[in-house]
């Protein structure tokens, strides 16, 4: 059976098979010689490859393409600002491009101009064309350092997409400082050669003193809601509370995401690769390219966590002379050395190459963008997968703001028979980040999402159906910071599910869940006591009225009511309930790295912190928080 099938597929090569011959006689096959075939075989440039496979880079459909363009430009802007030590101030402007003189409404439009401006360090004139119009060109691929971009594909791919759909070049303005001139460029990609084509290059007047502006004209679709530009920017602002984002929507609105945190994240250091994270092929390549003259020197200088002593010891163990020239190390010997290294106990890679967002910043980001009543954040200690250090951070925002209850609560309408108050079974929302960049697509393929599903939220007082997200008004924040985030595809949509990563995410979520559980239980206990008393208070009125009517109105109603209320108070928690509920002015007990919002204000205490922390004013211009004196008290860092 299998043999027959093989012979059919081999039709063009072997015509001796009878079955194949019958086939070829019915539909004659054109014979091609190896020489002719050879003439057709030629190199494919990356640009050509990605032109045909643009879905690999996140340009599958017009809606996603619009988001990808914004994302690539904003990522670059933030990376540049942070590397230069500048607090980012990024403006995103989406405009509808008129077609045949008419401007369709944003929801109907098919062409957009995306303009992203930053206050970053700018780009030197010579590099501009290649950065924006050459694929796989960039500063971030060859070093192990945490950054948003990794491969140097992003913005040039966006430019290529623009070129493909509208034929318009990418327009760039960049200025490196007040004394330098602003340069204006119009560039396109020569897709065959993967080289930039410069259409226009001149000096212009620019009102901005420093920074870069990229403008792309693309085919796209603007739609609000899930996985939209709006959502992406909102999530970006949660994970980057140090950045100020201004967003001009295509509908003419201006959305401002204010800076909630005034410190730049510590600049991540560049590190050398850790031996555990290197594959054999890579190891061989490094042997060829090293500047060291000896194998031992190569090991000690080109890798992190390998001391000269341990390098020599490893060489001895693998029966390789430490003085050997690295270029001469080949084949089986090299493999023995590689295995020896993998089996040697080494320190985990240094983690100063990572720049986690930090619990305080996550809290202020969540607090700024999400209206909840309980917030918490956890930053895990660094861990390692395949020799790459990474840090997992998780956060939670739970509940609805007290003031929201008031605005949504309708006046008590008497309920008819069969009518019930409808419970909304809203599921939690997971917001995922890799190196501070929100991930909006392929949620279910992502390690973070799997970890959220895998956790038994019921333990923390949150309802969860089998195999589903936990239910409740809750936003779950998960961030992975790493020098190399293992994405499942080039379009960077989901984090691969490595065991080490999954475990860390679970641990972080568990801690968040534990704190949420404590908060919920405490709240529940107080509320149930309160409800108990409330029940009695409600019914006392009814009972007193009924008694009074039964007695023909000859009852001292007020006295009876007081007596019953007194019994009620003594039989429920009494004044203790008020305390637990925070009614007597004392705030609810704080949990580490958490914020609790009550009707009276915002409480955030760091457990065990004795010194009074700095008081940071949470932005008051953000909707909802405007009127309340919303202050976050921060304790000392633990």
């Amino acid at each position, binding site marked *: 059976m299998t043999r027959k099938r093989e012979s059919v597929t081999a039709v063009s090569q072997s015509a001796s098979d009878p079955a194949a011959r019958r086939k070829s006689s019915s539909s004659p096959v054109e014979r091609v010689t190896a020489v002719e075939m050879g003439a057709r075989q030629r190199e494919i440039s990356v640009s050509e490859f990605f032109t045909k496979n643009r879905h690999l880079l996140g340009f599958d459909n017009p809606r996603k393409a619009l988001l990808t363009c914004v994302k690539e430009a904003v990522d670059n802007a933030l990376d540049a600002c942070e590397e230069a030590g500048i607090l980012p101030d990024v403006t995103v402007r989406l405009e509808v491009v008129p077609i045949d003189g008419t401007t369709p409404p944003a929801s109907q439009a098919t062409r957009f101009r995306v303009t992203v401006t930053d206050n970053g360090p700018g780009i030197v004139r010579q590099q501009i064309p290649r950065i924006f119009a050459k694929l796989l060109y960039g500063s971030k691929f060859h070093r192990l350092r945490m950054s948003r971009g990794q491969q140097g594909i992003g913005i040039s791919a966006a430019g290529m997409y623009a070129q493909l759909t509208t034929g318009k070049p990418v327009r760039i303005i960049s200025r490196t400082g007040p004394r330098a001139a602003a340069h204006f460029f119009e560039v396109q990609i020569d897709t065959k050669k993967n080289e930039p084509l410069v259409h226009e290059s001149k000096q212009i007047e620019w009102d901005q003193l420093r920074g870069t502006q990229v403008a792309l004209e693309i085919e796209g679709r603007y739609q609000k809601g899930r996985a939209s530009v709006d959502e992406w920017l909102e999530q970006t602002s949660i994970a980057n509370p140090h950045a100020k984002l201004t967003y001009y929507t295509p509908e003419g609105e201006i959305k401002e995401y204010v800076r909630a945190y005034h410190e730049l994240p510590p600049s991540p250091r560049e590190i050398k690769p850790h031996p555990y994270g290197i594959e054999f092929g890579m190891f061989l390549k490094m042997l060829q390219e090293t500047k060291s003259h000896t194998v031992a020197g190569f090991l000690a200088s080109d890798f992190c966590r390998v001391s000269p002593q341990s390098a020599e010891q490893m060489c001895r163990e693998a029966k390789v002379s430490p003085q050997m020239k690295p270029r001469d190390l080949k084949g089986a010997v090299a493999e023995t050395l590689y295995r020896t290294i993998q089996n040697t106990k080494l320190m985990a890679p240094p983690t100063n190459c990572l720049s986690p967002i930090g619990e305080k910043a996550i809290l202020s980001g969540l607090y700024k963008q999400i209206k909840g009543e309980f917030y918490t954040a956890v930053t895990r200690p660094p861990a390692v997968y395949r020799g790459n250090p990474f840090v997992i951070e998780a956060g939670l925002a739970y509940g609805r703001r007290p003031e929201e209850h008031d605005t949504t609560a309708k006046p*008590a*309408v*008497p*309920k008819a*028979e*069969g009518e019930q*108050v409808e419970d909304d079974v809203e599921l939690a929302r997971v917001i995922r980040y890799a190196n501070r960049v929100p991930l909006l697509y392929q949620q279910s393929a992502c390690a973070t999402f799997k970890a959220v599903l895998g956790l038994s939220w019921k333990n923390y007082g949150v309802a969860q159906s089998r195999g589903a997200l936990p239910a409740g008004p809750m936003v779950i924040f998960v961030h992975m910071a790493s020098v190399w985030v293992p994405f499942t595809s080039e379009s960077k949509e989901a984090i691969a599910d490595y065991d080490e990563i999954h475990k860390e995410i679970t641990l972080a979520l568990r801690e968040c869940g534990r704190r949420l559980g404590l908060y919920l239980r405490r709240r529940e206990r107080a509320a149930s006591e309160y409800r*108990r008393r409330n*029940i*009695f208070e*409600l*019914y006392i*009125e*009814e*009972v007193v009225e*009924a*008694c*009074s*009517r*039964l*007695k023909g109105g000859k*009852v001292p109603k007020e006295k*009876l009511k007081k*007596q*019953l209320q*007194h*019994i*009620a108070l*003594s*039989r429920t928690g009494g004044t203790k309930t008020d305390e637990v509920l925070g009614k007597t002015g004392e705030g609810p007990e704080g949990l580490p790295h958490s914020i609790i919002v009550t009707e009276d204000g915002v409480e955030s205490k760091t457990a065990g912190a004795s010194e009074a922390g700095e008081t940071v004013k949470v932005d008051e211009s953000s909707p909802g928080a405007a009127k309340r004196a919303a202050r976050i008290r921060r304790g000392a860092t633990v």
Partner: protein
Amino acid sequence: MTIKTKKPGSVEKKLVGLADLVIQAAERSKDPTLQIPIRALSNVSFNERKGMIEMGDKKQARSFFNVGMAKKFMQTMLVADALAELQRAELTTSLREIYYRTKHTIRDSHENTFDTQDESDPIIEDLEVSLAALREELHVRAENAGSIVGPVVFGDDGDRVDCSKLGKGGYSVPSIVEPEYLEIRRCTADFVLLVEKGTQWNRLSEDKFWRRYNCILLTGNGQPPRGVRRLARRLHEEQRLPIYVLVDNDPWGYYIYSVVKQGSINLAFESQRMAIPKAKFIGLSSADPERYGLPRNVGIKLNDKDVARAKELMNYQWFKKPAWQAEIKRMLASGLKYELDALANKDFQYLTKQYLPRKLRERDWLD
């Protein structure tokens, strides 16, 4: 409508007593608590001598300051208030009207005092038992869900009702049939046939079965309401008429018979007014299909609920008689139940012309 009560104000006094109880408890800083007799199998016993179910004296406390009972307590007070209002105004009303009268939204909340009638009905029963007042005394009436036809003359609100001259529709049995409300002026019948279903009652009435056999035909359309049961009891007691019960051959039919005969578990305290210990079970017996040649295909397979219920019945003390144990066992063994309607399989008038005449001739009934 004029209403006379035996002891004027006695029921009202009992109702007002509830308010006193609350006031006194409040005065002493005590939790107001009502003692309500338990209406369940655990609190009834079968009095073999009298042949009826009697209620025990187990009571359940209903306290106000108990989260689980607070609402019920409040509801009890509201219903008591509504019942007292009826007493004062000398009006009768239905269960459903009580529900509407007492339903309102509690001040400053989304909560209603009652959400459905299912909440207010048991409270009325609670009050009946705990105040030892009959439902009629509380001025609550049920639907007129029964019919009667036959040689009997009633006096109802001064009107003469001759049940032999009411065509095939008969007289609709009121829910309150106490002598003050319904008077039996004349009765020449020999027995009473209490039929479970309206269909068979109609058949018998249409065929003038009552004239031929000089009997009273009575139906309660399913589980007979109080009015029907009380009327049967009065005919039995005052006119010395034997009562025969004709029901479906299934556990529910058996239970209807047992309620007529010994009283119900839920309202065991009313047995002494309602139960007819000498009532006889005339059919449909599990022996009948064979005896009357009913084909197996007109039977219905017993479902799990039926089987469970039948086994439950066998454990009731009042079904312990050997004949009854055999009767139920036979049904379980056959695995089938039969409706009265199945008799039509043989002939439309089989019930009137063959089945009942033979039953009466052979004196084939169970006690």
